[in-house]
């Protein structure tokens, strides 16, 4: 097996060649500290300003509202803990959903250990947060609502605009983890009533260890790193210049092609969903059918376990992911699949394929051609399937 078929773009993406080319000068010749005074350093400073401008424009934000961080996890930690700490006098209650990324959930749990109270909202069987439930959960002492733009496992896109509207009506700050959505679907922080938004570079063809947090002007938030004057003194530390330049380049490329990419990915996604559901019995799509990231398909196969599917796909050169316990490093399957109501054995049998603008129709066909055989083989050795057939 020589060719690699990479369908794990939600885990990370490959750095675009144009992104790498944009970064190289800042790793060799132009490696001045942007805070220094001489011409070369000022050029680097200007390049950073330009990058900030590109990223701000992509969200309909102001450049002064973009704060560079080292990853999506950092952006989430800062947004949640920073807003909670800065508003502790107002209240100590936060609201999030049960299907957030661990960067959000574990930040919330850290606050709970400090004495904060957190409400974890249920989602429906498609993974959607119910706005009426949120309204009921908001209290006078609620200081932050944090809901993800799109879920990293099942791809469901949340009703962000409506949630933001409600938060603003109630005077509550609204944070959005857009790590999976940014540069994959259009986002407008003004129109969608978003106060803080987390982004990670390596999910859209920039390098790992890059990211930013959008913080709307006037939002009360504590500093993340104390030190120098970088990032309006809120997140000190000499900037990851090459990484930031590359992230802005990646955004520029992605947004220039956004409509085209979305259309293309949606077509491949739907082709694969339709074929798999049609050709493999006892399979079911996880996540919303249409309110869904263009690059995400997550399918549950009854009677079989996710890791054994991944290993079989790996033997064919296909990189994929699963919500099974074996892949999560614990004995529990994905909290997201449990939250949408799947029983354990079904949560263990899920397969996540996340495509990209570079996935070819031939790749999609190859995977669809081979999946039925893999599922059939694993079912033929599954005691759950044996029981099911005998009891039918």
């Amino acid at each position, binding site marked *: 097996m020589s060719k690699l078929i990479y369908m794990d773009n939600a885990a990370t993406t490959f750095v675009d060649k144009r992104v790498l080319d944009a970064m190289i000068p800042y790793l060799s010749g132009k490696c001045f500290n942007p805070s220094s005074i001489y011409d070369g350093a000022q050029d680097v400073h200007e390049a950073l300003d330009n990058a900030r401008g590109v990223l701000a424009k992509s969200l309909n934000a102001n450049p002064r509202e973009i704060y560079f961080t080292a990853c999506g996890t950092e952006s989430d930690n800062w947004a949640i803990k920073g807003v909670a700490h800065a508003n502790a006098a107002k209240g100590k209650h936060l609201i999030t959903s049960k299907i957030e990324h661990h960067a959000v959930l574990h930040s919330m749990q850290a606050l709970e250990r400090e004495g904060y109270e957190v409400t974890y909202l249920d989602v429906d069987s498609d993974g959607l947060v119910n706005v009426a439930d949120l309204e009921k959960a908001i209290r006078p002492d609620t200081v932050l609502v944090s809901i993800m733009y799109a879920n990293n496992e099942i791809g469901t896109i949340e009703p962000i605009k409506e949630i933001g509207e409600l938060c603003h009506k109630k005077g509550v700050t609204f944070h959005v983890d857009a790590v999976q959505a940014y540069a994959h679907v259009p986002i407008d922080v003004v129109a969608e009533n978003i106060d803080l938004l987390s982004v990670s570079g390596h999910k859209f063809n920039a390098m790992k260890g890059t990211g930013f947090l959008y913080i709307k002007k006037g939002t009360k938030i504590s500093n993340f790193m104390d030190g120098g004057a970088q990032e309006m003194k809120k997140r000190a530390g000499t900037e990851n210049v090459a990484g930031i330049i590359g992230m802005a380049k990646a955004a520029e490329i992605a947004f220039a092609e956004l409509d085209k990419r979305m259309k293309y990915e949606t077509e491949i996604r739907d082709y694969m969903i339709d074929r798999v559901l049609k050709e493999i019995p006892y399979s079911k799509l996880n996540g919303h059918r249409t309110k869904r990231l263009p690059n995400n398909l997550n399918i549950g196969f009854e009677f079989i376990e996710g*890791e054994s599917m991944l*290993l079989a796909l790996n033997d064919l050169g296909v990189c994929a992911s699963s919500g099974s316990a074996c892949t999560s490093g614990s004995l529990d399957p994905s909290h997201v699949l449990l939250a949408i109501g799947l029983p354990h054995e079904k949560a263990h049998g899920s397969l996540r394929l996340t495509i990209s603008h570079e996935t070819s129709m031939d790749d999609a066909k190859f995977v669809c051609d081979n999946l039925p055989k893999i599922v059939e083989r694993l079912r033929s050795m599954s*005691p759950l399937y*044996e029981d099911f057939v005998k009891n039918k």
Partner: protein
Amino acid sequence: MAYSEKVKDHYQNPRNVGEIENASGVGTVGNAKCGDIMRMYLDIDDATGIIKDCKFKTFGCGAAVATSSMATELVKGKTIQDALKVTNKAVMEALDGLPPIKIHCSLLAEQAIHAALWNYAEKKGIKIEGLEKPVNDVSELEDGDEE
């Protein structure tokens, strides 16, 4: 996940997959909650106590498939007494080791064999020397085993 070549071989080409009709003993252990379920079928010669055939079905990860497959190979042709010596450690060693988080799979394989033998003993109304009632939840065994 760093699996040994032997583990890979056994999940790619598992030995003795299937069912035995009118098996002398059948045992199922594990549960869907923890993500692994193993079922072992034994065909035992009543006169000699030799395990003539052994087959399995497993719902689980690569390690679960490989440990069941290896366990069937190890007990096939053995007497019941020798089959009891096929411990989880023996299965692991035969596979050139397992990642620490997968040790419970080898315990499950051991318990699956015990469950099938237990079933055989119950059907025959005999007691097998040295065989304890198998457990379904191997996490208790695992804790004691890690020292």
